[in-house]
């Protein structure tokens, strides 16, 4: 009996110690994050208070009047290209691999490679894009090239997320669809795609929130640190009402704008960098929140 109570006491002590260590670990993480955000706020909030100026003026040599107009419009345009190319390509590839491709050594190899690609440092994608778009296709840095570069970067994430979503659909559901006489395409269109939409959406949002913060690959392909004009509007007042010249425009994006400000010899620009950083954080946090909401909604609806 005595032995047992000693053992219990010992194990309780062990528990207690681990709790302390764990709490400390958590504290380090949380404290750094809080400190970071507080510091950014202290530096950046004054500028953000005058958000009309900050959001709607171009960067200039006067810190007080420098804003992020070119940067956020650039980010938006680039993300649009990324979204429109990466989602169809990624979802298409995932559907092919999961539903059509025969399972053999070759597809296993592709599978392993795609998962690994998701972990490749982003600057490598910049190099690859520079070679592919710059040397091979002779394109110069533009919204299109920037968007395609980030699209390459997030393609593996979208493929992996879509495959996971497809794989989580029970085989019995596929069998039910096929047993009713559906073709592969009908099964995919009426069942697999709708049921995996939640997973695809969360994967896409997370991938996009990664892409929006990327700097390195865009610098490698030669994105500008400063641009003078907004890209031409994609919609026009006369037929055909669409204009694709914005794809060819010079661009900069939020993280690059931050980077140029932090590198500026005038210390006053640090405030601009901090304010831009806050905008970027709000951007990515709200995207992640959206991903969580989507996932939650889907879990509510589909319980396999």
């Amino acid at each position, binding site marked *: 009996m005595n032995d047992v109570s000693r053992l219990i006491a010992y194990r309780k002590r062990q528990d207690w110690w681990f709790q302390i260590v764990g709490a400390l670990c958590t504290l380090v993480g949380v404290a750094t994050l809080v400190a970071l955000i507080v510091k950014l706020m202290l530096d950046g909030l004054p500028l953000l208070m005058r958000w009309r100026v900050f959001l709607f003026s171009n960067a200039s040599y006067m810190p007080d009047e420098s804003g992020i107009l070119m940067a956020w419009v650039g980010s938006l345009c680039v993300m649009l290209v990324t979204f429109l190319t990466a989602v169809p390509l990624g979802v298409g590839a995932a559907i092919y691999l999961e539903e059509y491709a*025969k*399972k053999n050594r070759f597809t296993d190899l592709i599978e392993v490679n795609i998962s690994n690609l998701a972990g490749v440092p982003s600057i490598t994608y910049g190099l690859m894009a520079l070679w592919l778009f710059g040397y091979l296709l002779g394109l110069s840095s533009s919204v299109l090239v920037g968007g395609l570069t980030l699209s390459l970067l997030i393609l593996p994430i979208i493929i992996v997320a879509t495959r996971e979503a497809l794989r989580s659909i*029970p085989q*019995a*559901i*596929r*069998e*039910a*669809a*096929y*047993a*009713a*006489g*559906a*073709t592969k395409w*009908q099964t995919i269109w*009426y*069942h697999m795609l709708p*049921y995996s939409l939640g997973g695809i959406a969360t994967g896409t949002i997370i991938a996009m929130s990664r892409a929006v913060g990327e700097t390195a690959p865009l610098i490698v392909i030669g994105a500008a640190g400063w641009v003078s004009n907004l890209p031409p509007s994609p919609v026009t007042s006369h037929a055909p009402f669409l204009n694709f010249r914005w794809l060819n425009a010079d661009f900069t994006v939020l993280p690059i704008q931050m980077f140029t400000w932090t590198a500026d010899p005038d210390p006053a620009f640090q405030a601009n960098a901090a304010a831009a950083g806050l905008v970027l954080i709000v951007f990515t946090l709200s995207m992640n929140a959206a991903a969580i909401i989507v996932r939650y909604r889907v879990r509510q*609806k*589909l*319980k396999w």
Partner: protein
Amino acid sequence: MNESRPATRAGAVAASRTDYASSGHLKAEVRGLNFFYGQRHALKNVELPIPERTVTALIGPSGCGKSTLLRCFNRMHDLYPGNRYEGEIVLQPSGVNILSPAVDPMEMRLRTGMVFQKPNPFPKSIYENVAYGLRLRFVNKRSLLEERVEAALRSAALWDEVKDRLHQSAFKLSGGQQQRLCVARALATGPEILLLDEPTSALDPIATSRIEDMIFTLKEQVTILMVTHNMEQAARVADFTAFMYLGELVERGATSQFFQNPQNELTEKYLTGSFG
């Protein structure tokens, strides 16, 4: 299960039971069928005539190949690589071997309806679950869809329970209701052959007897092949019963003879429960 009910029902059924000898029409005939899951030889030289518009019950211990045999009829095995058929299932009167590579598995799936061993409704509304087969056939007229959905749900003894919530998710139904929904889904398209894999395994006695009534009504139009672990059920609803063991079809006969006077020693042992 209620002890007295099966006896009385079986009596009623026996009166209208089609006699194999008198009805010469076969719907399908399984001849020398072997089936392989990769290396695994799951069906061994199965012979089974299936008379038209009758109920044939498959019984046998777990793992003996009942589901495997059932899934040959709509070529479900074609979905997976490495599965292999040998022998034939000849469909009458056309004489086509439905296992031949020349036959499109999709055709067989359009002509049969299947209820799986485990309920597998789609995560869509109750209505859409039942309407699915019709939509695949490009039936989109609303009035027609509604009419067919209601009829199918009525036959599956589910209509009264769901008529007020047709547009709710099928996942909100209980297990037994889901199973009946799957029955309704299989019925809605008016199949020639109905493949039922333990359609009442999750049902209470009342729902079970309503499904049995449905099977009984349906066989006037449809040929039914059903797997059951419940021998009283086989005795109640089946015109013919076949016993499978370790991938072989041991014995098949008109149900009354099969149960009263089994020819094979294995069958007798299985029926009397003195098995293994």
